[in-house]
């Protein structure tokens, strides 16, 4: 993939994440902070389909943005064909793993499997 496409994705995920993380944080402000963290309230959030979908989107956007940023830092620190391939594929792997693990939580909590 051309680097310009990757960077456009990096900027796009950043802008998307800003908006959605703001909503995510605002949800915690709908009640008293410590109350909003209580088990039943958090589970109720996961049972709201739009909110759960939003969480999924935030997870994907932040994972892509974060691991691409880390990939850029690591590529600048050291160069070489093998090392760069390792970092590129490693970043995709780490991204996928985090999205999978987070999605598992959203799915299981949303479907009441807790």
């Amino acid at each position: 993939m051309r680097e310009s496409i990757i960077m456009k994705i990096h900027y796009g995920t950043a802008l998307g994440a800003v908006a959605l993380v703001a909503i995510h944080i605002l949800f915690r402000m709908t009640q008293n902070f410590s109350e909003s963290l209580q088990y039943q309230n958090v589970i109720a959030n996961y049972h709201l389909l739009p909110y759960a979908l939003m969480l999924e989107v935030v997870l994907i956007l932040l994972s892509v943005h974060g691991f691409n940023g880390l990939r850029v830092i690591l590529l600048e620190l050291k160069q070489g064909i093998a090392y760069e391939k390792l970092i590129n594929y490693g970043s995709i792997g780490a991204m996928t793993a985090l999205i999978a693990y987070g999605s598992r939580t959203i799915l299981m909590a949303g479907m009441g499997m807790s």
Partner: protein
Amino acid sequence: MTERMSNREGLKGMANPTRYGLERVAYWLQRLSGLGLLAYLIGHIYETSSIVNGKVAWDKMLELTQTTQGHLILTLVIGMCVFHTANGIRVMLGHGGIGVGKPGQPEYPYKAASLNYKQRLCIWVSIALAALAMMYGMAVLFGD
């Protein structure tokens, strides 16, 4: 031998925010906050996954995180998030050529047009917003 021969400044040079003005400090803070936020994201995904193990597991997780240290870390995360966002928007616009000045005939003392007051103001605003967000965050977290 190759490293010395290439005379690269290395990580020490990349990570040194001094000598080159406010924009270099902003670059360094952007990197630091980005890494910090990534570490927090991974931790956050892990800690919130405890909800699938039931109320007991969730409450145990809250006992770990709803502490003074936990709140201080969260306050730091709030600051990093706000700075990274605000400065990131400044950098993104700069990357598109917005706010970097117009080319022209350089005049002595050759002050760079891209390092203008708008850029410096945006950096200070980002730092101020982060500080304000941290204060608000602390009021919410410790005020409960």
